[in-house]
């Protein structure tokens, strides 16, 4: 009953998130790509920021929601919450990969390298690997409850580890390459702030919408499987 109620709520509210996210992203893309001015230092390339930073922020948001859903699952043990965890992990992996890819493309013209061992990049790469491990663990576990619990444990451990990883890589970087590559802060002019804010909120809301859709998708797949299984079961019995 909890699950049907929950899915009903998702179905009721998802469209508002989707519509607002769509509008924000459309306006953000228009202002970012068409009307805003290029950056003083970076020139036109700064426009990558309007897609890269929202992706990276959303990856963090997705990972945090994976963490919260995992705690929620361990607390209440509702299988629909496990569906939400699974959905959040998949989306988190998608946005992390997107953030890494756009960051790499941004890095080439600004740092003249596709990849640098910058603390933020390194933490994201490790987060990416952890998420791949998470999804692999899910595929290798057959028991439904065991899968839900074990993956929740992994998500929690990974989330707690993330700040320590970031911190240690930062220390390590400051020891080994203090100057050659500096992440020069982008000075944000007002007309750049508008597309940036719009895109940040837009992609964040889009993630919320996608999480709602994907949770539904996984729940429904599960439900369909259960129903087909019951029909099969009754046919046999």
């Amino acid at each position: 009953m909890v699950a049907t109620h929950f899915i009903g709520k998702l179905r009721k509210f998802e469209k508002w998130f989707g519509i607002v996210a769509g509008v924000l992203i459309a306006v953000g893309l228009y202002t970012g790509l068409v009307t805003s001015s290029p950056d003083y230092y970076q020139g036109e390339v700064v426009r990558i920021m309007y897609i890269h930073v929202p992706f990276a922020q959303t990856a963090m948001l997705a990972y945090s929601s994976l963490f919260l859903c995992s705690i929620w699952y361990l607390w209440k043990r509702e299988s629909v919450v496990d569906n939400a965890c699974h959905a959040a992990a998949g989306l988190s992996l998608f946005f992390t990969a997107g953030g890494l890819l756009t960051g790499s493309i941004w890095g080439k013209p600004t740092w003249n390298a596709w990849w640098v061992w910058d603390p933020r990049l390194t933490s994201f790469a490790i987060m990416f690997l952890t998420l791949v491990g998470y999804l692999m663990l899910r595929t290798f576990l057959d028991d439904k409850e065991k899968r839900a619990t074990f993956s929740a444990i992994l998500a929690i451990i990974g989330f707690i580890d993330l700040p320590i990883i970031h911190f240690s890589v930062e220390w390590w970087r400051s020891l080994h390459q203090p100057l050659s590559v500096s992440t020069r802060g982008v000075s944000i002019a007002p007309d750049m702030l508008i597309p940036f804010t719009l895109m940040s909120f837009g992609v964040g809301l889009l993630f919320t919408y996608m999480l709602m859709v994907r949770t539904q998708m996984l729940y429904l797949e599960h439900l369909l499987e259960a129903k087909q299984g019951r029909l099969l079961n009754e046919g046999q019995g």
Partner: protein
Amino acid sequence: MHFFSVIRWIAWKDLLSEYRNRENISSMFFFALNVILIFSFSFSLDPVTIKEIMPGIIWVAFGFTAIIGLGKSFLIEVNNDCMEYFQTLPVPKGAIYLGKFLGNLLFMLTVEVILFPLFVLFFNLDILDQLLPLLLISAVATIGLSALGTLFSALTVQVRAREVMFPILLLPLSVPIFIGAVEATRGALSGDAFSMYSHWIELLLVFDVIFVIVSFWIFEFILDY
């Protein structure tokens, strides 16, 4: 107290089994020996290069040894469904974790203590005056590694493809241990003052404290899914 007697019983059982069959320690030891051998062929061994790459070699060898040893540490529990027995026990599950963790820590430290003289021997290191800091570094790093390793071993031992999953889960999340241990060892081997690299040991200590506590708490859910 019953809590501590659970820890004692688990550790006693692990140590006695290991004493009887010597499976874990000997496989860890000979594996690490092979790693050292391969490394000595792979790098030019002039004194300057050795100083530069030695900490990395040591911790890669110890890290892989940990994967071999810790990955198998819960195998003994699933062979005869002992995990199931643990699950039905009316005892705090965290105590079971601490017992396993203690046993693993002892195995790892034993292997490291045997291996260390071999590193000195094969790579002509001069470490006598740095012995105490080095011991401290390997102790704090090994605590963190076995804390995380014991937890993931319990997690992956009930999973298909456990040999693959264990390193895939353990290695990314133990990055801080490797960074801290390698940097601290580098400091110690190059003869720096202790205060120059003590912040790495502090980082390792923070990692240890956090993960022993978190694993202790979360182990309940592994046994009682």
